């Protein structure tokens, strides 16, 4: 153990951002040498990131690592804060990034591949930067990197739907970004600092209206990317017209990172505990609207996209309960959504490829034509619905426990409504599973598996879903310390400012 901690002390969290960023810019250069190895660059980058993140976990659990860039002490420099939340998210981003890039080895065959890989690397670099940074303007910059690369990737296929939804996404995203920037500007004007811990430290010294406006501006701005109702109208279009590998990342990582920024702003910077009740209702509303919209979808990817809105609602609800169980459950649900929805999009990707259409009814007899992919899809669907022994169950269990442990009647009723949302979710996922397996297809019953790289990446998703689902204790430790980082803002401030 001693050796391991020594080793991890030697690893610098900056690498998590620098390496993928450098590799992103190296892609065109490497492209001169050989076009063929380009697609392996993201695999290498995120494998590296995953290893680094995992190595950092033991030491981060003891003490958050604060990296001072330029050698100045925190309020005066841009700093990275690799606390449990940051590392949890970076590990998740690296994991999803790795698996999806393995999937993309074979899946991305058309279009400007070089640009795909650059943008892909940039997108996830931005995401990692957002979760690691301790500086609010830096957060904005990384956030823009994330958003701009996702606008471009949504339009990657170059068809009409892709470009249209990309532009819609761009417009809404820019409105959000400008609101965010406005909020940051107002904060800077008041406190004269951009360091998150420093602002958080002084926040109670300001009058309440003068901090309410920047808070609302920032939340609205970030809420667009976090897909909170009613700011999420870009999502169904964007997620359904992007290539499936990108949909998996958008659904599994991008909106989660947006959500991370929202809770970071709410919990750590503004300490807005009395504002959270509003978010409880907003979460339930988001969940219901998402699930209800998904229910009547005939297009598989739109269905999955709306279901992501529903899941985000559930996560927002969990975080806003704001007790230990709630926040832990929120993080857990986040992970289970990343794994479950990622898997679903990837599996749907090859099924769409095979059937030639996104229409659910064309998936008839898919169980025979692509047995493994269908099985993986089913596992993902069951996990999202929250059935044991998959990962969705322990996370849902924790959220229900959080709601009931408040002991308030209101929360009992709300969790009832949330679970009704689950029933609707179950209904549309089970319908798809039935179409895949039991509807008698008249299409050609030719058996053809998805390519091996795709299967491997989906298989790893399935293994993770099952293993964590059966034995959730595997990750509860990091979840608990992530929850305590979020709930004890004083500790966060102290560890950054020293």
């Amino acid at each position: 153990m001693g050796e391991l901690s020594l080793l991890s002390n030697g690893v610098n969290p900056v690498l998590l951002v620098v390496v993928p960023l450098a590799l992103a810019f190296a892609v065109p250069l490497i492209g001169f040498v050989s076009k063929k190895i380009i697609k392996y660059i993201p695999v290498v980058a995120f494998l590296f990131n995953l290893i680094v993140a995992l190595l950092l976990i033991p030491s981060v659990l003891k003490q958050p690592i604060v990296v001072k860039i330029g050698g100045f002490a925190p309020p005066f420099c841009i700093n990275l804060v690799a606390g449990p939340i940051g590392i949890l998210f970076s590990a998740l981003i690296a994991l999803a990034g790795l698996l999806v890039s393995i999937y993309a080895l074979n899946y991305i065959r058309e279009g400007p591949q070089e640009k795909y890989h650059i943008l892909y690397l940039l997108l996830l670099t931005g995401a990692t930067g957002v979760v690691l940074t301790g500086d609010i303007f830096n957060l904005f910059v990384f956030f823009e990197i994330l958003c701009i690369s996702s606008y471009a990737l949504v339009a990657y296929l170059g068809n009409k739907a892709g470009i249209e939804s990309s532009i819609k996404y761009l417009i809404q995203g820019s409105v959000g970004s400008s609101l965010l920037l406005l909020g940051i500007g107002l904060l800077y004007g008041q406190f004269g600092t951009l360091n998150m811990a420093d602002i958080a430290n002084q926040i109670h010294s300001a009058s309440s209206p003068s901090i309410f406006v920047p808070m609302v501006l920032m939340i609205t701005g970030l809420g667009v990317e976090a897909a909170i109702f009613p700011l999420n109208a870009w999502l169904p279009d964007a997620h359904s017209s992007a290539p499936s590998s990108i949909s998996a990342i958008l659904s599994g990582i991008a909106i989660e990172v947006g959500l991370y920024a929202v809770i970071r702003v709410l919990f750590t910077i503004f300490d807005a505990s009395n504002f959270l009740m509003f978010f409880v209702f907003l979460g339930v509303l988001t969940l219901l609207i998402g699930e209800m919209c998904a229910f009547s979808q005939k297009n598989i990817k739109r269905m999955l996209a709306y279901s992501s809105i529903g899941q985000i609602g559930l996560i927002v609800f969990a975080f806003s309960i704001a007790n230990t169980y709630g926040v832990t459950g929120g993080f857990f649900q986040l992970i289970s959504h990343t794994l479950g929805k990622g898997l679903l999009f990837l599996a749907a990707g090859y099924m769409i490829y095979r059937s030639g259409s996104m229409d659910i009814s064309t998936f008839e007899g898919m169980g025979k034509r692509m047995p493994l992919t269908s099985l993986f899809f089913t596992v993902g669907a069951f996990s999202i619905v929250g059935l044991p022994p998959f990962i969705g169950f322990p996370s849902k269990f924790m959220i229900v426990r959080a709601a009931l442990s408040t002991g308030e009647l209101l929360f009992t009723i709300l969790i009832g409504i949330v679970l009704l949302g689950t029933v609707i979710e179950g209904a549309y996922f089970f319908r798809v599973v039935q179409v895949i397996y039991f509807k008698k297809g008249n299409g050609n019953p030719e058996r053809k598996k998805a390519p091996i790289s795709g299967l491997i990446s989906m298989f790893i998703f399935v293994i993770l879903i099952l293993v964590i689902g059966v034995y959730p204790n595997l990750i509860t430790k990091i979840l608990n310390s992530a929850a305590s980082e979020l709930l004890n803002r004083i500790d966060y401030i102290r560890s950054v400012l020293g």
Partner: protein
Amino acid sequence: MTLELLLIVAFGGAFLTYFLGKISPKLRNSFAVINALALVVMTACLYGQTVEKTLHFGFLGMPFVLRINMLSWFFAITIVGIGLLSIIYSLKYIENEKRLDYYYFTTLFINASMLGTIICGDLVSFFIFWEMMSWSTYLLISYKGGDKALFAGIKYIIMSIIGSLAMLIGIISLYTHFGTLEISTLAVQIQGASLNYILFILIMFSAAFIIINAFWPLHTWLPDAHAEAVSPFSSILSAVLVRKGMYGLYLFMYMILGLNILNKLKFGFISFTGVFCWIGAITIVFAALTALLQNDSKRILAWSTVGQGGYMILGVAFATTLGMAGGTFHILNHCIYIGLLFFVAGAIEYRTGGIRDLDSLGGLIKKMPITFIGGLVGILGLIGMPLTNGFVSKWLIYKTLILGNRPFLAFAAFLGTWGTILYGYKFIHNIFLGQLPEKYKDIKEVPFTMRLPIIILTVLVFLFGILPGIPLKMINIIGVSLGFESLNVSLGGITSDSGTLNTINIFAGILVAGIIIWLIFKAGRKAPKVNQYDSYAAGAAIPKGKYHYTVNFYNPLERMITPYLKDFVDAFYIKITEWIQNLCNSVRRVYTGYVSNYVMYIVLFLAFLIFVQLKWSLW
């Protein structure tokens, strides 16, 4: 170790069966049978043991408790027993279907999860196994494909999920209140809880158990699911899976809450158990009369499953020693004869090419004698004829109702039995009696592996009918362990102050009477034998195959009862579903597709927040 081994064999066997199927179908079939047999043997060896052990690798820091006692053994043996017979029966029945690996895997997996719910001793494992059972059942109900089967599957899983989510709220609420989910600890701690809280929890749990038990008004999934599933699986569904709901009620009402609390749950003249009794009574009458109207062999049986559940809950919820014994015994009996009847219906399907329509069958008695005997005995058991097992349990339940001075409940129970006689006769007559349709001339008896389960269950119907003491002894132990008084059980029945039942005497009496009647007939003139087509029709010659009195079997009666038997509950649920569907469609319009609207949403959201804060300064 044995309990863990049991689970490992059950689940491991299911997976192994699947992979063996990839190598060779024969290997898979024999392994499936061996696996099911091994489970029966292992469970049988656990008889009479009371073990509870805690494994510390459980879910989210909660320990995983394994436990067996007489109650769980009782349910476990029915699961593995019917499981084995169903697998044997499937060997031939399902032979020509596709995706057999999947079929055997899912069947074994369902059995394993059911076994899991029975032998775990904490509620979270109970829930996990319960949900695994739910979704794997859903995967098998629609196995046959086709719109009807798909509809049945989705109906089942949605109702089941609603139930289990209610249960989940109950379980987690218990956990936040008492900090433990071990059943034995919970049973002690819950005694101090307030009655209102207990009622809340009880309602949450009951919702799940009533749905899976298919009691009125939450029965609507069952007729579709049971009719559309493949027959060997229908018998698992009907005989054991549905009765997991009964196990849940035992577990929660008697094992955790206990009689003391249960008797305290009274609000004026409405008591909790009383409500259950009336649910049972309504279920009995409604289902029996609805079954009469069915023209599909498996639908009749499905409705009878609903109805017989009513008897069980009537006995169990009555919460007297006698009622408890009757209800519990009825679970076992129903498991035996409904399993048998579904096998019979499946045998008919198998030989006639999937015909379940009672109007187009008939006269199969000579072609399929063993199946006929199985069907007859099953129906007799269902009706509760003396010498069959159904008689004893129904006798106990009637006795309970009469002793408890509940004439209306007793009337409902009797009415249900009359209905059962009518539809039972219809089942036998329309399939086996009357003229044989021309097209079924060359039908043969079903193969041995399908006959074997039928024969075994037929024997069991009589065995437990003539010697009810065998299971009653076990049931007595269960009753005592749940806090009821001990019964005076002998091999041939029950002796008590209020009445004695001795089936051995009845058996002897009937045997003597039978011999006398046979001797009288022997002495009399021999009856002339005519062939099956030689029907009497008031002197007119009737073409072959035209005269078979099955269509509109109980026409006058049907006309009388139909208006009262609209399944308005089902219609109501369907209406709700449609309503939700429309609602979903209109909610979807929020996303108009115009980006200007979307930007407006963002700005309005911001404006709303600022406005609210400025006006009321809520935050």
